[in-house]
């Protein structure tokens, strides 16, 4: 880690003299490409509402962790997130509108979480999860996020084409020997892990925007998969770094500041697309 610190100090940002800012800087540097990667497919598959529900369900994960007396609820959050995402994927194949199904799961999970966490009026100590705090990131967190990023890129190299075919037409994907159900499940599990690993840093209320906005901004102006992927990554990185600087200068929430910058990108590309039409 020492050489990374030295490298960071060479950058022309005064805030990087603080260790907690160094860690926060590294965290958003790792999270931005991770969210960009998964965001492109989440938006392609019209799953913005799904990932939103997943974020809210973190409360139940935290709640279960607390009930079990765990100091660190991350494991419970990941386990519950995976369970919920697989359950939604399974149920939404039926006839009921997937909108309704996701809403039912989302509200239930959030309510259970709040019920558990608000026992004896103690919700306040969990409220930091709502808006997140990237400054509390530890080196252990960074390592974990790095591992998830590597894993995601690995899966993205193996399964991306299959995911693309499934999102256009599942039967066509099957005719190409793609296991549609498996591919879809791997993707939602990956989203669940990513959301849960980063939610303490980015906040339950803002995490979905980080996933959706860079991809939504990029797709306004691109026509192919390669441009989509790289422009989303670029927008994600620029939003994350400038959002972090803004939050440092203004003393605001990092997650929300990043979202504001990403939203700005969305409106810029949105009007660019309108003008070009």
């Amino acid at each position, binding site marked *: 880690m020492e050489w990374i610190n030295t490298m960071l100090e060479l950058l022309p940002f005064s805030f990087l003299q603080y260790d907690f800012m160094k860690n926060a800087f590294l965290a958003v540097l790792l999270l931005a490409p991770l969210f960009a990667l998964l965001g492109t497919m989440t938006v392609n598959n019209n799953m913005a509402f799904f990932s939103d529900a997943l974020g809210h369900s973190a409360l139940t994960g935290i709640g279960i962790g607390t009930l079990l007396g765990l100091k660190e609820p991350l494991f419970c959050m990941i386990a519950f997130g995976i369970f919920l995402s697989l359950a939604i994927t399974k149920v939404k194949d039926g006839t009921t509108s997937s909108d309704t199904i996701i809403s039912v799961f989302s509200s239930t999970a959030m309510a259970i979480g709040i019920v558990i966490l608000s026992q004896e009026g103690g919700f306040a100590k969990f409220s930091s999860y709502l808006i997140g705090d990237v400054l509390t990131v530890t080196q252990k967190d960074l390592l974990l996020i790095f591992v998830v990023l590597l894993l995601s890129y690995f899966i993205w190299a193996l399964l991306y084409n299959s995911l*693309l*075919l499934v999102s256009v037409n599942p039967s066509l994907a*099957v*005719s190409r020997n793609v296991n549609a159900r498996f591919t879809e499940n791997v993707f939602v599990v990956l989203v669940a892990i990513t959301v849960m690993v980063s939610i303490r840093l980015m906040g339950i209320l803002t995490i979905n925007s980080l996933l959706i906005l860079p991809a939504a901004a990029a*797709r306004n102006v*691109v*026509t*192919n*998969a390669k441009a*989509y992927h790289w422009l989303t990554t670029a927008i994600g990185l620029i939003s994350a770094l400038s959002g972090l600087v803004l939050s440092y200068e203004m003393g605001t929430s990092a997650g929300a500041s990043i979202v504001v910058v990403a939203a700005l990108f969305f409106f810029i590309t949105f009007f660019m697309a309108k003008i070009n039409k």
Partner: protein
Amino acid sequence: MGIHNSCGLCRVELKQVSVKSGSDILLDNINLEFHCGQLTALIGRNGAGKTTLLKAILGEKKHSGKIYYEKHDGNEMKHPTIGYVPQQLLFDKNMPLSVADFMMAAKSKIPVWAGYQRAEKQKLKKRLSEMDCDHVLDKKLGLLSGGELQRVLLTMAIDPMPDLLILDEPVSGVDATGLDLFYKKVTFLRNTYHIAILLVSHDLALIHRYADKVVLLDKTVAEQGDAKDVFATKAFRQTFGYFSGEDTKWNG
């Protein structure tokens, strides 16, 4: 029609194939056989189970019974190559996905976000030009017309050349010229590569002209045989009314 494709599929036989969904019986004891070098048309009312049968053959829907692929030497073909042209693509039309991306995703292991080689793209262009469709290669998939999309899908379905080509109502939203072009191409494929083709369509006039065999489906096989024989049966008349000739087109 002496040229057989390299894999040498001879016939496909469905033995007692049934599909259930909960307590609903979607397909009931289908016994059916179709051959290479033939265009078999599947007709029936809406909800007769045509698409379900295609999905069972594709392996997407669980079914009981057996779907058996026999090679020319009489042995079973374990893993036939199946080409599939879906009825429609219900995807987000704004998806940033070019025709080249889509075709490459179906063909290549290299993820399309990493890009692809110019030579590979040239190959796709050449294949599309055989369908008079090479101008769409860099277009967004969601912006293609019905006819362009069908030709792109057909181009993909025959690369690699399949043993069995499945066309699900492949001409919805396509004008008459595009439709004729599509069927001429399909007939050419049948004659040249001797592949088995299974077609679902409502267009009885076209079926009358192009199909070698017609299967009337109503949960199970109601009638099968030559187009003119099937069209003369009572079961056919109950579903479609009288078929008076090629000028008449049904959309029932």
